Structure formats: structure tokens, C-alpha cells
């Protein structure tokens, strides 16, 4: 089954491009460390999932690129095409001439409705190229205007048009300081709206990824490209074909469905986090060896402090909330094939309280600003009123409360 990606705004398009790059590079790589048959099965599953075939033989990413101004999309399209190994469909993009100005209201209330038909047509075309649709994977940031505002609107449209498909929103959480001043407003509005229409929100925090780049990968002058590549690697490690428990020896046919089923037991809890190990600079790879116990121990320690070892430890009931059975709560997906030059790697996707503190932070700061009515005139200009803000705050306080009481 196939996944259609929707890349929204500058961040969405820049990250999306790295994701397809990573996936393509992984599949083409010779580091598989498994049997030829295994490799071929992997290759086929991955291709079906993310690419469609073009006459030229170059795989075409199943993606729709959306932005309100043209610079980023044209760059993304040309860099992909130049790689020679994959590209985007020349028709599958939409842009306007002027950006959303970091204004959620502009993205949601103006650009959204104005361009709904065109964008949904593009999505429909991509969907038709799929034999069977597993669902949608949208990539956006919360801080700006297009990814966040238009992204929330598009997610709603996807939900309306495809009520039975899964929608997974990949959301980039901005740096705590200094990307966009109104990022807290934009984040609050985005999260509250996404919570209604999306099945799950997979979150990456720029601050966390930045630390990985600095401390684990030892990159000196970290650029957004470095950050995006780490994000892409982490996403790839989850979305590349793997065997789930039920599927047995075959690669999972319904990746998004399996993910949702495993991770979202209750619609009140939709925030997912992702951790992946190991992460290290490429030139250290040759000198490192890995063991499964070591990796899993590390992962579990990342989940909570003071952990015990072994995979079995993930079935410890104390990790999970009382209304869940550890058997249901924990799933392991495996594949013998190595991913992206790491001889062994493991990823943990969890639905837990790890986002509670950042969420509480963002809501707190946004509320503070809201109390002094700062910048509100910029939003009311485009039709988002104070009541809309209050609704969003209420929704998120509810989410915070639910996660706190776990």
C-alpha cells in the first residue's frame, strides 16, 4: 500500500525532500547486509510505498508540494531532479507568488479556501496513481504561516475527502528561541486544529535534533540541512519496510494503519515522539560495533530514567498506564535489512508524556502574549478572532490535562 506525502511550506518542502533522498539512498545502498531475496523484497515494498514508476525509469516520489511562494519549491524540484536517482512529478506542485507572512490566519482563512480546489485536485491525482492507498503523511512546521495555517486547513480537507484513510501529520516544533516571534500563537492554533482532523501527530523538536547534531554527530556549524537530514533519517527508520508481528515473514502492507493501531489507543492521546539510535558521524561508523542489548538498553533509558536492560524490559507494566495491557501497548517491528549505513539501528516511537513539558511551555507563552493582546490585530485582520484563540487554548489545556493524568 502506498503513502502520499504532502509537503507544506518552506520547512515541509525542505524536510520532505531530505526524507525522499534518504529513503532512495537507503534502498539503492549496498549496505543491506542481508540476503539478495530479502533485499529485493525490501526494495519492492519501499518503492510501492513511496514512489511511482515513470517512463524514464526514474522513480517519482508520491508527493504533493505546496507553498505560497515559489522559491523553495523550485529549488526542491530542481535539486531532486539533478540527483538522477529520483524526482518529483513535474505537475504535483502548487505555489502562489506571495507567502503567508508567518500569519496562521492568512494561511488558514485566506490561502486555504482560495486554493482548496487546486490543491485537492493534485492530491487526488497522486492518490489515483496508487494501487491501494494506505494514507497521508503531511510534513509541516508549526511556527510559520503556510505550513501551519494552510497545513491545518489542508489536513481538514483531506479528512473530509478521504474519511477512511489514515492521516499522519509530521510536525516540526520550532526552536524555543528565535525563529518566528508569533510562533507560539501559530503553534497553538495548529495543534488544536490538527487534533480534530488528524489520526496522529508525529513531532520533531528542532532543539532536540540540534542537540543530536552537536553532541552525537559532532557537527560544528549546524545548518538547517543537517537538522533536516537527521529528521529524515529518523523518519526513514520508521517508515522503511519492516515486519510486524502479524505479518510474519512479509513486509507490512499497511504501515500507517499498523502504526496508528499500535500507538493511538485513544483519540485523546495523539502525540507521538520518535527516538532513533545510533546517531553518529559517518566517519565513525566504520569503527563502531553494535549489539542489540546495548541499543535497546539505550533506547529504554531514553524512554525513562533508571531503566533495566533487555527487550523484555519493554513489557514492564510499570511503563504503561493502568488502562492498557502491556501486551497491547508494546509492539516490535523488525527487519534483517540494515538501514542507511548503520549496521544495526533501532527506533522507538512512543505515545507518552515526553511532549508534555514542551507543550505546556508553548501554551504558557502563547497565553502570556494573548493576555496583553499583542499581535492579535494581525490575526483578526484575516478573520481569526479572539474566540478562536480561546477555543484553541481550551482544546490544548484539555490535552495537557489528559497527558498529565496518565
Amino acid at each position, binding site marked *: 500500500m502506498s503513502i502520499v506525502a504532502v509537503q507544506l511550506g*518552506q520547512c515541509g518542502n*525542505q524536510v520532505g525532500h531530505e526524507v525522499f533522498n534518504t529513503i532512495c539512498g537507503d534502498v539503492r545502498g549496498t549496505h543491506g547486509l542481508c540476503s539478495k531475496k530479502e533485499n529485493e523484497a525490501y526494495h519492492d515494498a519501499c518503492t510501492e510505498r513511496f514512489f511511482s514508476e515513470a517512463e524514464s525509469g526514474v522513480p517519482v516520489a508520491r508527493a504533493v508540494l505546496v507553498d505560497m*511562494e*515559489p*522559491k*523553495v519549491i523550485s*529549488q526542491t524540484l530542481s535539486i531532486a531532479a539533478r540527483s538522477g536517482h529520483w524526482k518529483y512529478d513535474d505537475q504535483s506542485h502548487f505555489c502562489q*507568488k*506571495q*507567502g503567508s*507572512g*508567518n*500569519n496562521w490566519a492568512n494561511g488558514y482563512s485566506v490561502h486555504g479556501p482560495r486554493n482548496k480546489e487546486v490543491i485537492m485536485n493534485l492530491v487526488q491525482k497522486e492518490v489515483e496513481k496508487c494501487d491501494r492507498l494506505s494514507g497521508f503523511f503531511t510534513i509541516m512546521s508549526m511556527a510559520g*504561516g503556510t505550513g501551519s495555517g494552510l497545513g491545518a486547513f489542508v489536513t481538514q480537507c483531506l479528512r473530509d475527502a478521504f474519511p477512511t484513510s489514515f492521516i499522519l501529520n509530521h510536525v516540526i516544533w520550532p*526552536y*524555543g*528561541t*528565535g*525563529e*518566528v*516571534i*508569533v510562533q507560539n500563537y501559530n503553534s497553538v492554533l495548529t495543534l488544536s486544529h490538527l487534533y480534530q482532523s488528524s489520526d496522529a501527530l508525529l513531532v520533531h523538536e528542532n532543539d532536540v535534533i*540540534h542537540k543530536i*547534531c*552537536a553532541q552525537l554527530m559532532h557537527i560544528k*556549524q*549546524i*545548518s*538547517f*540541512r543537517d*537538522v533536516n537530514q537527521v529528521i529524515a533519517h529518523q523518519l526513514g527508520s520508521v517508515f522503511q519496510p519492516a515486519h510486524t508481528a502479524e505479518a510474519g515473514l512479509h513486509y507490512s502492507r499497511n504501515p500507517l494503519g499498523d502504526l496508528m493501531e499500535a500507538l493511538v489507543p485513544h483519540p485523546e492521546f495523539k502525540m507521538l515522539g520518535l527516538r532513533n539510535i545510533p546517531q553518529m558521524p559517518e566517519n565513525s561508523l566504520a569503527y563502531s560495533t553494535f549489539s542489540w542489548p546495548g541499543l535497546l538498553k539505550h533506547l529504554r533509558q531514553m524512554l525513562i530514567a533508571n531503566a533495566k536492560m533487555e527487550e523484555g524490559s519493554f513489557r514492564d507494566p510499570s511503563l504503561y498506564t493502568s488502562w492498557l495491557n502491556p501486551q497491547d501497548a508494546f509492539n516490535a517491528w523488525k527487519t534483517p535489512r540494515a538501514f542507511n549505513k548503520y549496521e544495526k539501528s533501532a527506533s522507538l516511537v512512543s505515545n507518552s508524556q515526553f511532549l508534555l513539558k514542551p507543550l505546556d511551555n508553548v*501554551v*504558557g*507563552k502563547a*497565553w*502570556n*502574549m494573548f*493576555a*496583553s*493582546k*499583542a*499581535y492579535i*490585530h*494581525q490575526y483578526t485582520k484575516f478573520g481569526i478572532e479572539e474566540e478562536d484563540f480561546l477555543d484553541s*487554548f*481550551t482544546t490544548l*489545556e*484539555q490535552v*495537557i*490535562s489528559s497527558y498529565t*493524568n496518565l
Partner: protein
Amino acid sequence: MTQSVVVQVGQCGNQVGCRFWDLALREHAAVNKKGIYDEALSSFFRNVDTRAVGYKVYGCQYRENIVEKLRKTAEHCDCLQCFFIIHSMGGGTGSGLGTFVLNLLEDEFPEVYRFVTSVYPSGEDDVITSPYNSVLAMKELNEHADCVLPIENESLFDIVNKIHQMINSGKLGSTVKPNSLVTSSAGTAKTVQEKPFDAMNNIIANLLLNLTSSARFEGSLNMDLNEISMNLVPFPRLHYLVSSLTPLYTLADVNIPSRRLDQMFSDAFSRDHQLIRADPKHSLYLACALLVRGNVQVSDLRRNIERLKPSLHFISWNQEGWKTSLCSVPPVGHSHSLLALANNTCVKPTFMELKDRFMKLYKKKAHLHHYLQVDGMEQGCFSEAISSLSDLIEEYNELDASKGGLRTDPSRLKIAV
């Protein structure tokens, strides 16, 4: 690709405008060696001639004429995003006609942003009635501009002097790259002797170039002009931004260690680099934007913000009030540059001084008759204008009052469990 239209009004406006076009062409020529008219260039120019039309018209009866010219220019734009108005506040044409045009733009093109670069008069201005002109203009700026970048000739003069001193004192080990001087037009089409104001006007021209760089060139974190307004203007009338530009020159040696890069950030917050005499470090920041050009990455940005934050006072509800952008293309002659725009209560003293100078004249009704002779001008215009300015000062006062006091955060919404 969005377009901007530059409207140059009055003597000051036109002189600055000319410097601007020269430097803009030079910048695009440097990027595009083949001299092909490309997309980035099209943000300012149309095929052969420029969009800047200097206005030498006077008075309201030319309104139709002006509207006509603006319409024609706007029609050539695919997607007009912004008007840049360059004028002075002290003179008659610049301030009067300039703000008249501002009004006009709001009426005819309400959705297009209006950025105004205003040169404020100094205390020893040779135009006696400059306080009147300025305060009357301020009312219009308050109500009709989206963003105003106030500039003082004294600051520009100081920058020019500083550069001359550095060059002549021979303190610099290597030679300074001539085209890197923020005051020079080396490498442009201009072959005439440089006039005295040219160096100062070049600084303003560079300001405009840096402001629009992210809209014209690519980068990893773009910032369009509408984002400047969105992020830096928390309340509609408080849209006066203090600008500072670095570097002022670049040495000829190419290797720039990161210490030099950090120095650039520090300089942007030093008073020597500001285009207006004000003291932001001892006042309250409402918001701050950093527009970075060249080979600078997000980690450099973050490092410097962390470093500088402790010495700056931000208002309680905007402690992380930083807006940043990264544009890959540096200005000509530099490997990187930084334009800082601050919405800071330090502009208040400037306005208060203006008000004082106005009141000195107004109390004695000095020179008032010249204005009242003009059709449409009444005493009411003056009282409205001064009241508008007083209100503005009061708004800044209220915000200042919140500084330093212990402020408890407003309590959050409670959810029934």
C-alpha cells in the same frame, strides 16, 4: 516572486533613491555574472527602465497624475507586495507630499504593505519649520504606514566619520575592500564625483537592499516583507523600528574566523551601527529581527542570540521575541552581513524631543500663517497632529512602566477533570 515599488519623494528622497538603484544593480550584477535579466532582478526592475519615478510635483492638484503613474507601475508587477517610500520629515516636499502619497497608497492599494524610510531632522536643522513638518507627517505615519524606519542624519554622519577615521588612521592591518564600504558606490555605474550626502545616502540604500534580500534571493530560512510587519508590530501604531547595519566595511583578507562572525552580531547591538540615535539596551524591546546574509548557519544564529540575550531587556510577554532569517547571498564585497531591526521603546525620547521643538514654535504661533494660508490647512490639523504624537508617546510610556516590575503571569485556563 513578489515585487516592490520604490517611491522617492523630495530632494532627500530622490537622492537616496538614486543611490539605491545604483547599488541594487551592482548587487544583482555581482550575483548574475552573465548579466541576464533574471528573476531576482525582476523584483525591482522591468526590462529596460527602472520603476523608480522621482516625483517633482507639488500639491494636491496633481493627485490624478500621481495615481496614474503609480497604477501604471503597479500594473507591470506580477504580484506587488510592498511600497517603499523614501523621504525626509523636515522639508516641505518630502514630509508633505511624502505622507500625501502614503495616504494615497493606502486608498488605492490597501493590501500592499507600506514601508517608509523617514529621515528625521536634527536639532540644528536649517529648516526652521521642520518641527511642524515632522509632527504633521508623524500623524500620517502613525495612521497609514505599516512600518517606519526612522533615520537621523547625525547617525549617518557619525558612521561615515568612523569609517574615514579607520581608513586614515592606518589601524587596519590590511587594506579595506573599496566596494565593501557601506558608504561607497564603487563598482556602480556612477562615474560622477561623489557629492557630500552620497556616502550617507548609500547607507540607507544598503539598508533597503538588506531588508529585501531574503525576498530576492534564496536561503534556508526565508523572510518576506510581510513577515517583518507580522512579527515586529505587536500593536498597530507601534511600528517604528530602529535599524542597525553591520559590517560597515570588510578587510581584504578572506579568512573570516567565527570570532569575527560573532563580532558582527555584537556590533549590530552597538550604538555605533545604528541609523538613529537611541539607546535600545537601556529601554524595552518589544521585538527584534535579525536578517542575516551570507554563509551563516542556524547554529551561529542561536549561539549569538543566547550570548546577547542577557544584556537586553525584552518585555515580559515576549521574552523570546526574536525573528530571524538566513539568506545565502551576501552583499557585494562582504562574506556576510547583518541587519537588525528592533521595535524598542528607545524611540520615545526622539518623539518627545520632536514634540518639544514643535511646542516651542506652536506656543508662539511662529510661522503658523504660512501653513494656514494653504487651502485645507486649519489649526485643527495641528492640534490633531500633536495629540496623535502625544498618544503614541503615551503608549510607549505604558509599556515602559511594565519594565522591571515583578509581573505575575496571567493564570491559565482550568479544565474540569
